């Protein structure tokens, strides 16, 4: 595996279930057992009622592009040689928006509303990142 030159997630006990899910190729989202609300990004409390009683559920991994940008010029570490690349908010069927990269297609064909599905990329021996690709 070529050395990954981009920033990596700083995984902590709070976020480890999410990243372990990615290793298993499952995109996990949290749901509050108290109020039933889904949320992303995952965190230690429910963003609605602040309960700590949260469960991890496997998302169907399907959604649509809420918005996006094709980056042509960047100083972001490790991304200079990747341009043009797509940064997007994807709205999952479960109703939460997820920030990430849309890969596996011509950036010029990405559009708001485009159906996408989650895919995974092992970027190091320890870390797997979620990606989105045209569905």
């Amino acid at each position, binding site marked *: 595996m070529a050395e990954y030159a*981009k*920033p*990596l*997630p*700083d*995984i*902590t006990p*709070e*976020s480890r279930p999410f*990243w372990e899910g990615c290793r298993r190729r499952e995109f996990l989202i949290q749901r509050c057992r108290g109020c039933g*609300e*889904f*949320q*992303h*990004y995952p*965190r230690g409390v429910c*963003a*609605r009622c602040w309960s700590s009683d949260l469960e991890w559920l496997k998302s169907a991994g399907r959604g649509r592009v*809420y*918005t*996006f*940008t*094709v*980056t*042509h*010029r*960047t*100083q*972001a*570490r*490790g*991304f200079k040689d*990747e341009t043009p*690349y797509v*940064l*997007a*908010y994807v709205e999952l069927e479960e*109703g*939460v*928006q*997820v*920030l*990430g*990269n849309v890969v596996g297609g011509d950036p010029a064909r990405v559009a*708001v*509303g485009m159906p996408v599905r989650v895919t995974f990329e092992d970027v190091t021996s320890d870390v797997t*990142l979620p990606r989105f690709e045209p569905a």
Partner: protein
Amino acid sequence: MNALIAGVHEFPERKTVRSALEIQALSARAALDEAGLTPRDVDGYFTVAGSGGTGPLPILDYLNLNPRYIDGTSVGGASFVVHTHHAAAAITQGRCRVALVTYGSTARSSGIPVGTRERIAGDYLDQFEGIYGTSTVGLYAMVAQRHMHEYETTEAQLAQIAVACRRHAGLNPAALYRDPITVKDVLTSPVISTPLHLLDCCVITDGGGAVVLVHPDLARNLPKPGIRILGAAEAVAHTSAGRRDYLVSAAAQTAPRAFGEAGVSHGDVDMAMIYDSFTITVLMTLEDLGFCKKGEGGRFVEDGRLELGGELPINTDGGGLSSNHPGMRGIFLIIEAVRQLRGECGPRQVKNCRLALVHGTGGALGSRHSGATLILGRG
């Protein structure tokens, strides 16, 4: 609120060999001088947290000051608008009588790629945001893209905002870029992050400034007419647990409160200083402040409405897009609005300017940001 703006100063250089602390010291001295006050009079101090995270401590050390009221609120470029609100509130409550708001930055000479570097803050959120090549310009660009999708706003409409600011910069000898530009120039400038081009993005400068606020008891000794703070409001908007409408900014929360406190309406505003990190920032802010309906910003900014002589001249100094943006710009919004209200702006003066609106935006419209509004009037 029972406080007046008595002195302002914008550091004149756009590239400097001075330190961020010296920029603030020189600006503070000049603003106090304009207010007819001395360092011994200062008993309230407001500035952002520097890289050490200790707020006003380094500059208070540098200036050898011991104020009785301090505030290091750091919410991005809007911070100094928030500081001015807080300073006016503190003076109104009798917590201090002479407040200094200062800013200094050497972003340009330090070669900091403010807009295009990865947006990594060193906190828990980075692992869900900053690792994807996420830059400041990218986050604003996504808002522009959604706006274009939802409301058929065009790149040419966004470009009109850059053209207006550049025209005003041509009337400001201190502005970084002063040669006029056209919509075509904006649209043919390199694409940074779609749909935003280079000329949709603010400049990167060194710079800083200072604002002095005083209790009205001190007003009769002021060399310059004091400027009143008629209304002030601040708010935040964020990712909302993954359920955010990114086409509504914090300005939608601040506008009713600031206009309500001031007891004025949009038609009373003679000029506005609108934070212009990117052209989309201005378009969104004008809509959310209520100068036009949501979705109509594209048409609103056409036909020279935002230029001197138009219905709502904005950013008469040339804005962050053409004059000055050393990483954060909020203090310049206040400085220019005060000068307009005093009638000091020469060739770029708005005729009979009696009421000015300032709105600062800090952070990123496409993730989380602060918004702060001030409505300022002649004393």
